[in-house]
């Protein structure tokens, strides 16, 4: 590649200088301070009897370390929600992706005698024991999203609805196609990691929902929840069907790659529905320039609600719009469909991927 006969001294000097220069350029390039994400503001039930400050409660909070936008939003939402209440003291432990470290963290929360612990476990199965330990110590546990093995391990579970996501996506696709009067539509699906139960539930919901309209899923491929896999799978999938009428992509993060592939192929004859509800996807929907017309939510604002529930539990209140004086034991969130019409309402709840 290079001739090897040039004087070594000069060349090494040049190389050295180039190296120093390169290092300077590179270190200048690691800055990554994005404009800080405004934490999601929920339409908290401020104004009813329950929102009046009561006795001060300590809420312990433990979640995995943020390895993607959704988890980051969970932690942000929890701390933002706690700040809204003058009677809530949030004890958030160091987020970790290590099971043993999370167990240890929850144990310190037990020792500190938190009133309620809100926990998004790294793994529901493996954190069940320590959650039961907390319950036995008289600390009520709110289980966020990834469910524990035993109902004895939590007072209340709150989480998203994967099957419901599929249903919502199917409903949007079905309604739109009926409205347009498309018969025999080609409906494509880009799923997430196929071996995960959540992916299977999403796909099942999608299939069942489409069946109500007499439609079925055509080309279906699984990506890996990553942008690159979304691009790779979609680029090929688009070639398998010269005409597509609708597409559902399970995850807005891999959706960035899906949209890139669609743009690169110059395709625009179909509409697409996203999943999870990233701020980026919502901005695309709002701009209404590409194929992305809707996204079905798996909202990280569940963390905000979990903090509200924890406060109610600790203060001995129920949910004031319901008859029962206690907080329910099981709350599955609805997977709402965000479209151009209602995107402004949901945009503040979207998470940065």
């Amino acid at each position, binding site marked *: 590649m290079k001739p090897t006969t040039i004087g070594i001294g000069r060349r090494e000097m040049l190389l050295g200088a180039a190296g120093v220069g390169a290092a300077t350029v590179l270190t200048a390039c*690691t800055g990554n301070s994005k404009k800080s994400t405004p934490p999601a503001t929920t339409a908290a039930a401020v104004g009813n009897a329950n929102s009046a400050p009561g006795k001060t409660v300590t809420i312990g909070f433990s979640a995995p370390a943020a390895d993607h936008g959704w988890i980051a939003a969970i932690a942000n939402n929890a701390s933002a929600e706690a700040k809204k209440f003058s009677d809530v003291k949030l004890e958030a432990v160091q987020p970790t992706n290590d099971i043993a470290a999370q167990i240890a963290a929850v144990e310190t929360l037990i020792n500190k005698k938190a009133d309620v612990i809100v926990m998004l476990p790294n793994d529901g199965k493996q954190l069940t024991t320590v959650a039961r330990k907390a319950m036995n110590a008289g600390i009520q546990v709110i289980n966020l999203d990834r469910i524990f093995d035993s109902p004895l391990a939590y007072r209340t579970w709150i989480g998203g609805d994967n099957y419901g996501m599929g249903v919502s996506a199917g409903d949007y696709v079905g309604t739109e196609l009926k409205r347009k009067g498309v018969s025999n539509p080609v409906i494509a699906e880009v799923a997430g990691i196929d071996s995960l139960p959540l992916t299977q539930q999403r796909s099942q919901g999608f299939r069942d929902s489409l069946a109500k309209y007499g439609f079925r899923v*055509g080309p279906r491929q699984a990506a890996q929840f990553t942008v690159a896999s979304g691009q790779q799978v979609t680029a090929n999938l688009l070639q398998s069907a010269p005409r597509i009428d609708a597409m559902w992509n399970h995850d807005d993060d891999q959706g960035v790659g899906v949209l*890139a592939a669609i743009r690169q192929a110059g395709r625009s004859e179909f509409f697409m529905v996203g999943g999870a509800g990233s701020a980026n996807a919502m901005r695309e929907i709002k701009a209404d320039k590409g194929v992305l017309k809707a996204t079905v939510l798996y909202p990280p604002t569940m963390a905000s609600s979990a903090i509200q529930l924890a406060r109610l539990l600790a203060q001995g209140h129920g949910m004031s719009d319901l008859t029962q004086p206690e907080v329910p034991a099981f709350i599955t969130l609805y997977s709402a469909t965000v479209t151009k019409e209602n995107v402004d309402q949901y945009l503040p709840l979207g998470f940065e991927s």
Partner: protein
Amino acid sequence: MSDQVTPPPVAEQARVEADAAATAAAPRITLLTRVSEVRNLGLVGVLAILGIIGAITADTFWTRSNLLTILQQASVIGVISVGMTFVIIGGGIDLSVGKVMALASVWSTTVATQSYGPVVMVLCALLVGMGAGLVNGLLIAYGQLVPFIATLAMLAAARGLAERISKKQTQLVTQDAINNLATTKPLGISLLVWIFAVVAVVGWIVLNRTTYGRRTFAIGGNLEAARLAGIHVRRHTASLYVLSGLCVGIAAIMITSLTTTGSSTHGDLYELDAIAAVIIGGTLLTGGRGTIAGSVLGVLVFTTISNLFILNNLQTETQNIAKGVIIVIAVLLQRRGRQTAT
């Protein structure tokens, strides 16, 4: 070559010198190309079979846009494989390519880097790739680390650094000049495919028509002979990893354009895909022999398989099984080809 009956040390010396000379001489090169042609013929055969399967099972396979999609999907891993071919021919291995590519994509798409514009982004990706390659090269050539270990360590470190810089978030590219690389289509063919073609052709020329290429063969074929023949073995070995890093940097720009993002999740297991493509392309894992054309064909075989599976709406798990089977068959065929050719 070694039919002398003189005492072992002298015989060894003579053999080594003859070997080194032969490696650098033209006749050996033509013999090599002849052997590798036989090998590549096998891969062309595999591609032809895949083409026939495609024609039967998927009516869109033989369309212009599908073939161009295959080429575009092959381009990123293809560029990496060209660099990998050099490293493996030189007797090494580079396991860090996938995650160094992720690191370069992340580093070149931070808010700070993007604020300097597309030229700096490209330079940044190339520098990160070559920098990581230089570290690999120095550790292996001067630090006497086994390539497998040194580049495995680099894989881990690069992944960690990429995750740290990006905070494990996907970094959207706002510079249209970068995003447009994948959508710009001179003569109807994606710019990424053109880049792949240029890298492959330049790689072929460097490997087969320059002293640098001949030295690479010599070092991979017989390190000691190469050293005795006066080649700066250490310096050359280090440079091979820088070359691989350069290819990885180019690939990082390509994947960034293709996905319109930089991410620490890019390039997962690309090292295995690249090594597999190089190996089924007829390059010896022990070094000393190999071709760029074979590696390119190897990449095309794998990409075509992926494409065929998706066109037929088959799931990806089965793809990996097919890939595994093809690697084994290709290597077995090669061994037969080599035996009949020599």
